[in-house]
């Protein structure tokens, strides 16, 4: 493929909205964040705006890197980083447990990435 053809194809993917952009991935470990935890949260669904209120409050915690919502056994998942276990404990007690409408919560401690985001069966 020539450079011009390649560029036209990329441009076509961009304008079709398939290629949304290229983002830099930050290595938080290099900035001193050694702990990464996946918090799986069940919300108290008897409150009508539980999802919205929980999500807006979670956005205000700087150490929260990802907020996902699910259909299944858990409702939400937060990806949280901390400098060390002492910092994590502080975050967990002061910021996470203070989020609204949590009815249950379990944590998965991240040990390592075996495969990082990538492949698509195209």
């Amino acid at each position, binding site marked *: 493929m020539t450079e011009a053809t390649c560029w036209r194809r990329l441009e076509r993917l961009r304008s079709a909205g398939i290629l949304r952009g*290229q983002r830099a991935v*930050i290595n938080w470990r290099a900035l001193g964040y050694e702990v990464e935890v996946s918090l799986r949260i069940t919300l108290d669904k008897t409150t009508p705006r539980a999802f919205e209120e929980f999500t807006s409050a979670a956005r205000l915690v700087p150490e929260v890197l990802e907020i996902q919502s699910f259909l299944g056994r858990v409702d939400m998942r937060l990806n949280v*980083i901390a400098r060390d276990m002492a910092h994590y404990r502080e975050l967990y007690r002061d910021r996470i447990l203070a989020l609204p409408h949590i009815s249950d919560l379990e944590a998965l401690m991240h040990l390592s*990435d075996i495969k990082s985001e990538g492949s698509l069966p195209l």
Partner: protein
Amino acid sequence: MITLDDLDREILRALSEDATQSAGALGRKLGLSQPAAWRRVKRLREAGVIARQRVDLDLEALGFGVTVFLGISLAAKGRVALADFERAVVAIPEVQSVQHVLGLYDYRLRVVARDLADFERVLRRRIMTLPGVGAVDANVLLSEERLSGPL
């Protein structure tokens, strides 16, 4: 460990939005000269703070309407079991990421599929046949947002 000032943080925030920006464009945005912006980006790369670039694709537009997170526990644990499982799981094209975790499960997988029927096929043919696989828990992704983190 590298220490960051406010300008470094701004640069990281800008590059997490758009990694293709030139040093000149970054500099104009932040009131830095092109060489000064370039030196800062170079320093961040060399310190490993900018790990890589991620291509942001609209999966739905590509026909992948379903993303499912799987929590997998291995039936037998031991070094060989972990290695066998890991070798097999990374080869599945529908599996986008695999994390080794500590807690209720051993591994966390992100899986894409065209629709729920396609997901069932992946689950039956590829996931349930993995060596050593025990209990599997599935949650279908409804929405996802990434935040800029503690910058």
